[in-house]
C-alpha cells in the first residue's frame, strides 16, 4: 500500500493536471516493497505479513464459527461452510483421490481457502495487495506440500521403492541411466519450482497489470491528454479486475488440485 500511495501521490499532487515536466509514473518492483509498520524484536512486520496473518485468522474463524455447534439440518454460516467443504471435496479431492482421500479434506480445504483469500486481497479496497506476489509467501506452502508428498511416498514404499517406481515399466535397462537425470530434475527441482512460481507469477503479473491501469486512468484524467485514453484505461481497469477475480480462484484451484494429485500419486504406489 505504501508503494501504491507513494506512486499515486506524485501524479495526484501536481502532475496529472499539468503534465509538463511530469511523466507517467510507471509501476515496477518498488510497488512490491513495503515499509515496516512495526517491529517485534528484530522481525520487521510489513503489510503483506499482516495480510497473510489476517487471511489465516479469517479462514480459521470462518470454519470455526460454521462448525462450532453443528446442527443436523445446517443453517446460516454452517450452510455456507458445508457448501465450501463440499465444493473442495467434489471438485478437487474426490476426482484425484477418491473416497480413500477424505482424511486429507481438512488440509485441502484450508489450503484452498487460504490461497484464495490471499489472492482476493489484491481486489479488496484498503488491502489491495496479494501477498502471494511476494515469492517468500509461496515457498512455505510448496515446502509443506512437498514434505507431505515425500513423506507419504517414502512411508508407503520406502525410499528405494519410491524412486524405483519413478520409471514406468517397459523401459529397457540401458535407457535408465539416460532417463534418471530427467526424472530427478523433474522431481526435485522443476515440479516444486513450477508449483510455486506459477502461483507467484500469476499474482505478481495481475497486481502489476491492475496498478498500471489504475495509475494510467488517474494519470490520463486530464483534458490535455485526452479523455478517450482515460475511458480506455478505465475500461481496462474493469476488465483486468474481472479477469483477476477469475485468476485468483483458478490459481487456488490449480495449486490445491496439484496437491491432491501429488498425494494421490504417493498413495497409489502403495497399491
Amino acid at each position: 500500500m505504501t508503494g501504491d500511495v507513494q506512486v499515486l501521490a506524485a501524479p495526484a499532487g501536481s502532475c496529472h493536471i499539468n503534465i509538463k515536466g511530469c511523466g507517467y509514473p510507471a509501476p515496477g518492483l518498488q510497488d512490491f516493497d513495503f515499509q515496516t509498520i512495526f517491529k517485534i524484536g528484530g522481525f520487521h512486520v510489513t503489510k503483506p505479513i499482516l495480510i497473510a496473518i489476517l487471511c489465516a485468522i479469517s479462514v480459521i474463524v470462518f470454519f470455526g464459527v460454521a462448525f462450532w455447534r453443528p446442527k443436523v439440518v445446517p443453517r446460516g454460516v454452517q450452510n455456507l461452510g458445508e457448501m465450501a467443504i463440499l465444493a473442495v471435496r467434489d471438485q478437487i479431492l474426490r476426482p484425484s483421490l477418491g473416497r480413500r482421500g477424505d482424511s486429507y479434506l481438512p488440509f485441502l480445504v484450508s489450503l484452498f481457502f487460504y490461497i484464495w483469500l490471499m489472492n482476493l486481497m489484491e481486489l479488496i479496497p484498503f488491502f489491495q495487495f496479494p501477498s502471494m506476489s511476494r515469492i517468500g509467501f509461496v515457498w512455505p506452502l510448496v515446502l509443506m506440500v512437498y514434505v507431505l508428498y515425500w513423506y507419504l511416498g517414502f512411508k508407503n514404499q520406502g525410499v528405494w521403492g519410491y524412486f524405483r517406481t519413478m520409471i514406468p515399466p517397459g523401459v529397457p535397462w540401458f535407457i535408465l541411466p539416460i532417463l534418471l537425470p530427467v526424472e530427478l530434475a523433474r522431481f526435485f527441482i522443476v515440479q516444486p519450482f513450477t508449483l510455486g512460481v506459477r502461483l507467484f507469477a500469476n499474482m505478481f503479473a495481475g497486481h502489476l497489470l491492475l496498478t498500471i491501469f489504475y495509475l494510467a486512468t488517474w494519470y490520463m484524467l486530464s483534458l490535455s491528454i485526452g479523455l478517450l485514453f482515460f475511458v480506455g484505461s478505465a475500461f481496462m481497469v474493469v476488465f483486468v479486475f474481472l479477469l483477476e477475480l477469475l485468476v485468483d480462484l483458478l490459481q487456488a484451484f490449480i495449486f490445491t488440485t496439484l496437491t491432491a494429485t501429488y498425494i494421490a500419486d504417493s498413495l497409489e504406489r502403495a497399491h
Partner: protein
Amino acid sequence: MSSYRSRAAAASSAEGGARGIGVGWTVFSYLIGGMVAYGGIGWLVGRGIHAAWPFPVGMLTGLGISLGYIIFRYGRQGAVEEGRGNR
C-alpha cells in the same frame, strides 16, 4: 435417475479435469527437467574442458530425451487412464 446421471457426469468431468491438470503440468515439468538436467551436465562438462558449446548442446539433448520420454509415457492411447500419468 437423471439427477444421478448428471451428478455422475459432473464427477466424471471433474475427474478428467483433475487428471488433465496433473498430466499437463507433469509433461511441462519433463520438458523443463530434461533441459535442466542435461543443460547442467553440459555446463559442468563445458567448465571442465573450458568450452561454451556443451551447455546448449546439453539443453537440446535434454529436450530431445524429454520429448521421447513423454511420447513413450503418454503417447499411447489410454496411457493416462491407466493411472500412469498422474505424476
